[in-house]
């Protein structure tokens, strides 16, 4: 299996033909649009996952050079209620997301075709089409590439954890005692660095597959242009009587799951909480702001029209007053 497959050959062969070969396109030169044009998405067929954890290990290995090495003791925080989040002594934790574990396997005991089964599901950043973690980062530390990858720049992040709060799945995880905040006002602003899956952006940039996809022995994941991945997800769901998650959640994501059971059931069966994201519905978090954008465009024109109309009226009545005064 070729490690690197060009976008052209991917499209030529079609997603179906590429199938488990998990074709890959390098980051697209096309402009990314709010509808996901030009973005690459991944498709995860939950039925195929055997929960071996090869993806988790590959992810850890590839990201080991980026793993935080905090300075201790941590700077004293003011006020004292600012939480210290330290995972450096718990690097082996694999059953949730941490700064050292950007992908984990979630388990769900469910009934599939009348038979009890344990489904295993790789979980990581969903890479939203219009990611709130990127849009709302007050420091510009989170960024989205044209190919749909959203990434936190660990050299720039101050660890305020706003990205985690605004993420519908609360994916990013904080490590205190590392990063730029140590060089600014460590006691009064910032609290480390936020970590999350960057979908192996360096590997993708040179035409390689993300490590989790490459390492999977069961070909759970495919990657390709979002429209093709969505089409393939629908085909798969139709073929298997499955259900789709990630296509419309939070306005659309670039991580599409196909499950043999409804996601409401899956969500009820998984362990949720910090570092363990849900499978519940997620409304478009940027929706309200996007609606106001239209009002922003109209506002100046409305103001010009209002000012013009009002002062035309004043000038007209002023001329009338003057002419009466002259009479």
């Amino acid at each position, binding site marked *: 299996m070729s490690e690197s497959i060009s976008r052209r050959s991917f499209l030529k062969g079609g997603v179906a033909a590429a199938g488990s070969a998990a074709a890959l396109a390098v980051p697209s030169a096309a*402009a990314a649009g709010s509808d996901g044009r030009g973005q690459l998405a991944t498709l995860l067929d939950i039925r195929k996952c055997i929960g071996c954890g090869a993806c988790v290990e590959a992810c850890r290995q590839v990201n080991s050079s980026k793993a935080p090495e905090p300075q201790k003791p941590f700077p004293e925080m003011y006020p004292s209620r600012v939480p210290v989040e330290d995972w450096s002594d718990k690097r082996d934790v694999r059953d949730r997301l941490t700064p050292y574990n950007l992908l984990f396997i979630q388990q769900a005991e469910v009934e599939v075709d009348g038979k009890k089964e344990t489904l295993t599901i790789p979980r990581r950043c969903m890479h939203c089409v219009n990611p709130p973690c990127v849009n*709302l980062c007050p420091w510009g530390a989170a960024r989205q590439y044209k190919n749909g990858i959203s990434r936190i720049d660990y050299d720039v992040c101050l660890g305020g954890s706003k990205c985690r709060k605004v993420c519908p799945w609360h994916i990013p995880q904080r490590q205190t005692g590392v990063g730029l905040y140590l060089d600014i006002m460590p006691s009064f602003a910032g609290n480390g660095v936020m970590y999350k899956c960057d979908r192996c952006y360096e590997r993708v940039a040179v035409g390689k597959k993300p490590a989790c996809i490459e390492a999977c022995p069961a070909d759970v994941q495919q990657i390709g242009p979002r429209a093709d991945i969505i089409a393939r997800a629908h085909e798969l769901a139709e073929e298997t009587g499955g259900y789709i998650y990630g296509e419309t959640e939070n306005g659309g994501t670039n991580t599409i799951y196909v499950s043999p059971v409804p996601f409401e059931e899956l969500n009820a069966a998984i362990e949720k909480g910090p570092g363990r994201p849900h499978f519940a519905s997620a409304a478009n978090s940027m929706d*309200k702001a996007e609606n106001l954008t239209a009002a922003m465009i109209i506002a100046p024109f409305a103001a010009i029209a209002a000012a013009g109309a009002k002062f035309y009226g004043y000038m007209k009545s002023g001329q009338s007053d003057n002419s009466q005064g002259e009479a």
Partner: protein
Amino acid sequence: MKTNTHVIARKGRIGNYAYGLTLFLLALTGFAQMPIFKRYYIADIPGLGWLAEFYTTHFLHYLGATAILAITTYFAAQYLLVTRRYRKLSGSGAARAAILLGIIVSGILLVIRNSAFVPFSPAVVTGILLVHLGLTMVFLLFALYCRFAGRPWTIPV
């Protein structure tokens, strides 16, 4: 003409209040984009919990931005259509207008970036954010100085 001047002056006062309130809303919700209000107990003050809700403050910031676009355009149109016949921008007024323009332009760029219609490079985004924040700080300090030093936006021609 006297009657018209009075009407314009009254409308101007209403406009000034709207402008002041909008600036206050924008400054408050703008600073709330940084995770500081919860850290420093401000969001713990009864009635101010919403300052720690990022989507709420972001929506209100957009709402304020819509209002400031309308108000500043209205003031500019008023100045060009009528006021400049008998008053002109003072030096401090021109400086405030220039800074405000910078804040508005950088804000518009951030709205465009948030809409994901145009991808900006990460360095450009950080630059725009710093310009937006920096100009806001300069504007607020300068506006306070002008207020207490009695520097009007316009002076008689």
